[in-house]
C-alpha cells in the first residue's frame, strides 16, 4: 500500500483543534432539545401513524405540548404521565395527549417519580428491541458477506417507492453493494416525516418508515439470492435528523447521510437546530451500528476543489469530533469528500490522488465516503463516462471505502436503470483491471502529489486554528465553508429549539451514552 509522507504531529494538532472547535458546543447539547428530538423520543416509545390530515402523531403531540408551554420538560415525561394517568397503551395515550394536552400534574413528586420510572423502563425496552434489530442485521451481514472495497454505492430516485424497489433490486443484481434512496426535493425542509408508502416525489422518493421497510425487505431477499449482503442508506439530514435515525434503526438501515453542517450550509437550517439534532441523532446511529455519511463533498459543488480542498479536510475533522462526542467509533464515520477538480486543470488527477490519499491516511479506520464528478460534468455523456473512469481508478488506487458511482447522465436527470448498469460496468472494469496498482507504485517524496497533500493539510490546520479561535458559530457566519454565510439566529427551524427545564426528561440520552455501542 502506497503512502504519502505525512506529518503525524500536524494531524494530531488538527484533531486537537477540532476538539477546541466542538467542545464549547457540547454543553449546549445538554442544555437544549428540539421538537424533532422530542418526536424522535415519542417514536422510540412506539408512537407512530398520522391523523386524518396526514399529520404524524409525534408532531401532533409535540405541537400540542409546545402550544401548552409544556415541552420544556420533555415529551417522554408527558407521555409517561399520560400513559400512567390514562392506562392507555402508548399509541392511544399519545393520541389522547395530542388531543387533550397534558392532564397530569408533573409537580406531584410521587407521580413524577413513577412517570420517570415508566419512561426509563420503557426506554430500556425500546433500546433492547433496536439492539435486537441491529444484532439480527449484523448476523445476516456476516453470514452473507459484503462486496470488496471500494463498495459500490448506487442511487435510486424515481419518486415512487414501487418503482424504486425493483430498480434497487436490479442494481444489486448488477453488482451494487449499497443502495441509496434519494429523497424528494425539499423533504429536508419539512418539519415532519411523511407517513406510509409514497409514490410521488421529485428528484427522489420520500423517506418514510414504510418506504424504508419495503426497500429493506426487497434488498434482503435479493441479498439472499445473490449470497451478498446489500446495504441500504437514506438521509438523516434536514429538520428531522433524529426521527429519521429512529426510523432507520427500526427498519434496519445500514447507513445514513448525516452531517453536522450540511443542513446549515445547504438547506439554510438554523445552526443551533442542526447541531443539537445531529448530536442526538448520532447517538442513535452509534447505538444501531449505522454508518454515517458526512457531506463535505457538497462544498466542492459550489466552491472550487483546488482552492477549497482544505475546507473539506477541516470539516472532516470537525465531523469526526462531533461523532466522537456522540459516542461513535471510527468504524461508523463515513467521512465525505469528492472528485470535483475541474477537468481542465493540468495535473488535476494528481491533485485528486493527493486528496483521496490524504483523507485515506488521516482517517485510516473510517469507512470514507467518496463522491464522483458532478459539478463539471455536462450533458456529453461520453465525456462524463471518461471522468468516471478516472474517478474509479483513483478510488481503487487510494482505497476509498464507500464509493458513490458516477453516473454518465449526472448533468441531466436522476439515473435511468441503464445509467446505473453502465456505472457498475465502468467501476467493475477499473477495480479489476487496476486491482493491485496501489501496491505497485510509490509517490515521489517531494513530488506534486506529496506537496499538494501537505498543502491541503497545512491549510486545513490554518482554517481550524481560525475556527477554534473564533468559535464555530461565528465562523459559519463568516462563510468559511462552501462560501456560504449563515447567521446564528437565521435559517429554518430555530423555533423548534428550546432550553430544557430543570426537570427535563429524556431517558434515552443516558442509556445511549452508557451503552456499549460498537458496530
Amino acid at each position: 500500500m502506497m503512502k504519502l509522507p505525512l506529518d503525524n504531529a500536524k494531524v494530531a494538532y488538527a484533531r486537537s483543534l477540532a476538539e477546541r472547535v466542538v467542545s464549547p458546543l457540547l454543553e449546549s447539547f445538554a442544555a437544549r432539545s428540539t421538537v424533532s428530538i422530542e418526536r424522535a423520543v415519542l417514536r422510540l416509545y412506539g408512537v407512530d401513524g398520522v391523523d386524518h390530515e396526514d399529520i404524524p402523531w409525534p408532531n401532533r403531540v409535540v405541537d400540542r405540548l409546545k402550544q401548552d408551554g409544556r415541552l420544556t420538560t420533555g415529551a417522554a415525561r408527558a407521555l409517561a404521565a399520560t400513559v400512567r394517568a390514562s392506562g392507555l397503551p402508548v399509541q392511544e395515550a399519545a393520541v389522547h395527549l395530542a388531543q387533550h394536552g397534558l392532564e397530569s400534574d408533573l409537580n406531584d413528586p410521587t407521580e413524577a417519580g413513577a412517570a420517570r420510572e415508566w419512561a426509563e423502563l420503557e426506554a430500556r425496552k425500546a433500546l433492547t428491541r433496536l439492539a435486537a434489530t441491529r444484532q439480527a442485521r449484523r448476523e445476516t451481514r456476516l453470514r452473507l458477506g459484503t462486496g470488496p472495497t471500494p463498495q459500490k454505492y448506487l442511487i435510486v430516485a424515481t419518486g415512487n417507492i414501487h418503482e424504486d424497489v425493483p430498480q434497487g433490486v436490479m442494481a444489486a443484481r448488477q453488482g451494487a453493494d449499497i443502495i441509496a434512496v434519494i429523497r424528494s426535493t425539499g423533504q429536508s425542509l419539512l418539519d415532519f416525516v411523511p407517513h406510509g408508502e409514497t409514490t410521488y416525489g421529485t428528484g427522489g422518493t420520500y423517506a418514510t418508515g414504510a418506504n424504508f421497510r419495503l426497500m429493506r425487505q426487497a434488498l434482503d431477499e435479493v441479498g439472499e439470492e445473490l449470497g451478498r449482503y446489500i446495504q441500504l442508506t437514506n438521509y438523516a439530514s434536514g429538520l428531522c435528523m433524529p426521527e429519521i435515525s429512529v426510523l432507520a434503526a427500526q427498519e434496519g438501515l445500514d447507513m445514513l447521510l448525516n452531517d453536522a453542517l450540511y443542513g446549515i450550509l445547504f438547506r439554510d437550517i438554523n445552526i443551533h437546530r442542526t447541531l443539537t439534532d445531529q448530536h442526538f441523532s448520532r447517538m442513535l446511529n452509534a447505538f444501531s451500528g449505522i454508518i454515517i455519511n458526512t457531506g463535505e463533498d457538497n462544498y466542492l459543488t459550489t466552491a472550487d476543489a483546488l482552492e477549497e480542498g482544505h475546507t473539506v479536510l477541516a470539516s472532516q475533522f470537525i465531523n469526526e469530533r462531533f461523532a466522537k462526542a456522540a459516542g461513535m467509533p471510527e468504524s461508523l464515520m463515513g467521512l465525505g469528500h469528492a472528485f470535483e477538480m475541474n477537468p481542465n486543470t493540468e495535473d488535476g488527477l494528481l491533485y485528486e490522488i493527493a486528496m483521496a490519499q490524504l483523507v485515506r491516511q488521516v482517517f485510516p479506520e473510517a469507512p470514507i465516503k467518496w463522491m464522483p464528478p458532478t459539478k463539471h460534468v455536462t450533458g456529453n455523456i461520453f465525456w462524463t463516462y471518461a471522468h468516471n473512469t478516472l474517478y474509479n481508478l483513483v478510488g481503487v488506487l487510494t482505497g476509498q471505502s464507500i464509493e458513490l458511482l458516477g453516473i454518465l447522465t449526472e448533468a441531466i436527470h436522476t439515473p435511468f436503470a441503464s445509467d446505473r448498469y453502465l456505472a457498475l460496468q465502468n467501476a467493475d472494469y477499473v477495480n479489476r483491471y487496476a486491482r493491485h496498482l496501489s501496491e505497485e507504485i510509490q509517490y515521489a517524496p517531494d513530488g506534486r502529489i506529496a506537496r499538494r497533500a501537505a498543502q491541503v493539510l497545512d491549510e486545513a490546520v490554518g482554517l481550524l486554528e481560525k475556527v477554534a479561535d473564533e468559535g464555530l458559530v461565528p465562523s459559519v457566519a463568516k462563510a468559511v465553508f462552501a462560501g456560504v454565510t449563515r447567521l446564528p439566529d437565521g435559517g429554518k427551524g430555530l423555533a423548534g429549539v428550546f432550553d430544557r427545564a430543570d426537570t427535563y426528561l429524556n431517558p434515552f440520552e443516558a442509556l445511549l451514552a452508557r451503552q456499549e455501542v460498537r458496530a
Partner: protein
Amino acid sequence: MIGIRKADLERLKPYGDTMDDGKTQLSFSLPVPAGPEAAEAAKRLVLAHGFADPMMVRMEAMGPTMSFFVFYGAMQQTIDYKNLVVPKAEFEALDMHQIDDLIEAQFGRRLVVVGACPGTDAHTVGIDAIMNMKGYNGHYGLERYKMVKAVNMGAQIPPEALVARAIAENADAILASVVVTQKDLHITTLTELVEVMEAEGVRDRMLAIVGGPRMTYDLATELGFDAGFGPGSYAEDVAAYVAQELLRRQGKAMPVRA
C-alpha cells in the same frame, strides 16, 4: 479555407461519415429478457421511429428481465434549416459598461431585479452565477453593475415570497432559476409563479425571466414568461435583454452606439 462538403441546408440530415447518411446512435433499455425476441422488438421500435437500416450493435442483459441496447440507424426525415426561424430573446449583445451606460442614459435610475430559486429548488449556483458580484467564468454578476440593484433571495423561495419581495422592491424584473426538472417540477413551480404574479396584478408591471440548464426561450414563453435563458448564459445577457426590452416597452428604440 477548407470546409466540409456543402450540406443541403433545405434538407438537413445528420452526418455520420458521409454527407446526408443520416447516421444516428441510439441507446435504450427494454423490460424483457435479452434474446432474439428482444433484439427483434428493439429493431422494430427503431424502424417504427423512421430510422433506415437499424443496426443493433450491442444487446446486453441488465438483469433477468431487462436488456440494454445500442443501435445505429439512419434518420430519414430532413429539416429545412435554411428557412428555420428560431424565436429567441431579441437584444443586442452589450458588455457591463455599455449596459450601465445605457441604463444611466435611458432610465436615469438603477434598474431593480429580484432573483431566486423558487419552490423547493435549492440549486443556487446558476442564479448566483448571474447575480453575485463574482459572476461566473470571468463574467461579473449583476451585483457588480453600477446601474442595477440586484436582490438575490437564494434557494427554496415560495413563489408568493418572491413576488412579494419584487413588489416591495418595485422591481423591474423577476429572475427565477429552476434546475430540478424531474417529474416536470420546474413546470409546476413556474406556472405557480406566473399565477401568483397575475393574482397580485403585477404580471404586466415587471418582466418575468427564467433560466436554468434545461431552459429554452420556447419553453419560457410557453409558460408565460418574457424570456428564458439556458446553459452558458451570463449576467450581461439578461441585463442587456432587460434594459432593451423595457426600453422597447416604453416605445423607445435602442440608441445607436458609437
